[in-house]
């Protein structure tokens, strides 16, 4: 994009109809949540309806705020690593990597090659499980009584079993360290990962046969929650939601962090930016992740997974600041660290992709019905642990 066109002007969104003529009655205000089966966590949406149509929507969150960033100031760098597991609790491995990346930038710490490959493998496995879960949750929200969700979770269990046998815990992995990974992946683990990746294509084919051509799903998701590229860019939306609007911005290509430039994968783009595009982009990204995983599992070299000069305890980077970001499954997850030379960071800030993507919820939902609101929220893919920290 050329400098003069950036940021592009935001086209006006759907207009809220002025309620003045006598055919219209009261507006109905409904609060969906925080206890609600479809809000993906403790999240509240205060919707004002005119009949069935949403004319105003205020998202209310903060119910899961746990002082993550303040805790970061009072905990050592190493001690904050388990807390990053709990941000986006689906994607612990990528959260760990983003934090490790920014601390490594701060301290100028190098990472051995095997560790880089292992990080890529774990990140792509995380992307697979996150997008699979999203497909399941989105279809659950549209009312497919549990069937796609159960298929998605069946596959997710296999990936979680891999994570458990490598790091000791299914979700709260606490696996990345500053300078590499905590433990090495033995050869039989890599073989099991290869088997899982080999079988994943067949699962995706079956899942798509169940859902993607389904006329009811097409009717529920196409044209719903349309997001324009201009609004997405100006709101700071990242991840599959941005790529569904047609903007080719994938940090794995833009930043080329880690060893991603060595892998041959494509970035799928959507044209309409609606819910269906956001869902399909994630399915296509899963197929690209499978390609990356095949390559990484094949090419992973022998060697140490931790830089021998890296220190586990007493990590005290010189005073300075660093922002490390990766393309997490939900978008750009970044950590901004300011060091004052002490054992704890002076400032510890998380850039949560779910929160930034959520800010435009009202723009997406205006003009749609309440049933669509649930579907649109599902397609944004939020995790409240990340939104509220």
């Amino acid at each position: 994009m050329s400098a003069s066109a950036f940021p592009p002007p935001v086209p006006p969104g759907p207009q809220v109809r002025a309620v003045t003529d006598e055919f219209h009655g009261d507006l109905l205000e409904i609060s969906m949540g925080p206890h609600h089966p479809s809000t993906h966590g403790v999240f509240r949406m205060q919707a004002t309806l005119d009949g069935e149509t949403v004319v105003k929507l205020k998202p209310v969150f903060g119910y899961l705020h746990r002082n993550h960033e303040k805790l970061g100031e009072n905990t050592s760098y190493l001690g904050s690593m388990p807390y990053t597991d709990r941000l986006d609790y689906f994607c612990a491995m990528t959260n760990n990597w983003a934090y490790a990346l920014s601390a490594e930038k701060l301290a100028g710490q190098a990472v051995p090659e095997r560790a880089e490959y292992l990080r890529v493998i774990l990140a792509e496995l995380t992307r697979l499980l996150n997008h699979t879960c999203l497909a399941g949750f989105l279809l659950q929200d549209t009312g497919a009584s549990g069937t796609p969700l159960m298929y998605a979770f069946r596959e997710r269990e296999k990936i979680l079993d891999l994570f458990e046998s490598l790091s000791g815990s299914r979700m709260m992995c606490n696996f990345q360290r500053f300078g590499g990974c905590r433990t090495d992946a033995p050869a039989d683990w890599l073989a099991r990962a290869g088997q899982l990746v080999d079988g994943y294509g067949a699962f995706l084919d079956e899942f798509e046969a169940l859902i993607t051509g389904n006329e009811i799903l097409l009717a529920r998701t196409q044209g719903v929650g349309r997001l324009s590229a201009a609004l997405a860019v100006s709101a700071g939306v990242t991840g599959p939601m941005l790529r569904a609007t047609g903007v080719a911005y994938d940090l794995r290509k833009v930043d080329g962090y880690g060893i991603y430039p060595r892998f041959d994968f494509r970035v799928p783009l959507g044209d309409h930016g609606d819910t269906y595009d956001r869902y399909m982009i994630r399915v296509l990204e899963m197929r690209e992740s499978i390609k990356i995983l095949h390559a990484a599992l094949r090419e992973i070299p022998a060697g140490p997974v931790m830089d021998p000069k890296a220190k586990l305890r007493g990590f005290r980077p010189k005073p300075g600041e660093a922002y490390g970001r990766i393309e997490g499954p939900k978008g750009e997850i970044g950590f901004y660290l300011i060091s004052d030379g002490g054992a704890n960071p002076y400032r510890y800030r998380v850039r949560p992709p779910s929160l930034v993507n959520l800010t435009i919820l009202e723009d997406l939902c205006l003009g749609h019905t309440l049933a669509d609101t649930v579907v649109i929220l599902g397609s944004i893919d939020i995790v409240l642990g990340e939104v509220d920290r």
Partner: protein
Amino acid sequence: MSLSWAAGDSVLERAPLIVRDALTRALPEPWRWLANSLLAILVIIGLAGGLFAGLTLVERKLLGRVQNRPGPNRAGPGGIFQPIADGIKMLTKEDIVPRAADRVLHFAAPVVLLAFSILPFAVIPYGRRLVPVELDAGVLYFFAAGAATELAVFMAGWAGHNKYSLLAAMRSLAQLISYELPLLLSFVPVILFAGTLSTTGIVAAQAGWKWGWIPHWHVFSPAGFAGFVIFMIAALAESNRSPFDLPEAESELIAGHLTEYSGFKYALFFMAEYFGMIALSAMAVTLFLGGWQAPLPFLAVIPSYVWFAAKLGGLLLGFLWIRATFPRLRLDQLMRFAWKFLVPLALLNLGTAAFWAATFEWPGALQLVRWALAVGLVVGPFVLLGRRLGAGYAPRTYRYA
């Protein structure tokens, strides 16, 4: 011609009547008729209730197996006592009536709903001589009683004195009324072919086998097949089953018109929904699938009520299968589907049925022409209307950066 009538006097076939007569033989005449009727009512309610309980369990187990899990299997071997456990749970829950609610309507709504859901069972022929009430206008009675259940839905929403449940009740009512029309239009071809509104007459009109092995069921004619499909879709919507269960969706306005109900009354609503499903399936069997007729001549040794039960079970399993697979439609899409797709198709189907009935006597080779024309008249509008309905929705191809 058919041999089925000859095989209709076996002991197994007459067993229910033999038992009934043994119980009431001793009574004098008017009392005997009363006793027979009461027995029939008790048996129907018992069987329908038992089927409801079994259906909830089968639904959960089937959904479980489709979703790669076993379903309930803790209450009794294989989970057999799960419906009893659910019943006990429902009965022991506190019955909450909101203070501002209209108490009479709040109590009456589930009762009225259940009453009108059971009434249609009276005219279904369950076997060769097993129809509780022989009415000349049986089909008319069935759908009239069934339509009265919609009133109870609105009563429930109104009685709660709650803005949200009233809104949800109105949406539910809109859905029910919209799908009444395709439901009723879809079986007019059957009436045309059978020439009678009596359910026993309709079953009798489907007797016999063509060329000795294809039954004369209405579903095997083009207009009848189209009518069957439309009837089943409308039956899904009439009983608030997925994919038309938006009024009850938990991601919607909580439980819709049932928000203000708890405990046993909620169970009654639930029961009435399943009774509606069973009744509509039974009527579909009667109208389109030949009722209690056996599919092949040599299979007529199996009693007629067993065939009826098998066909009914097949249709109910179809309902469950559809529930396990599809997401639900939004309300406006639901209504558009009814008014802009099903109603025109059903009306055009009437024309096809008239053509079919009028050309019954065409000689040998022209039968092929008759079939070709009828199939074209069914498939053509379906494809064209389908294209119109699905315009703008299609799987997409994506580009890469």
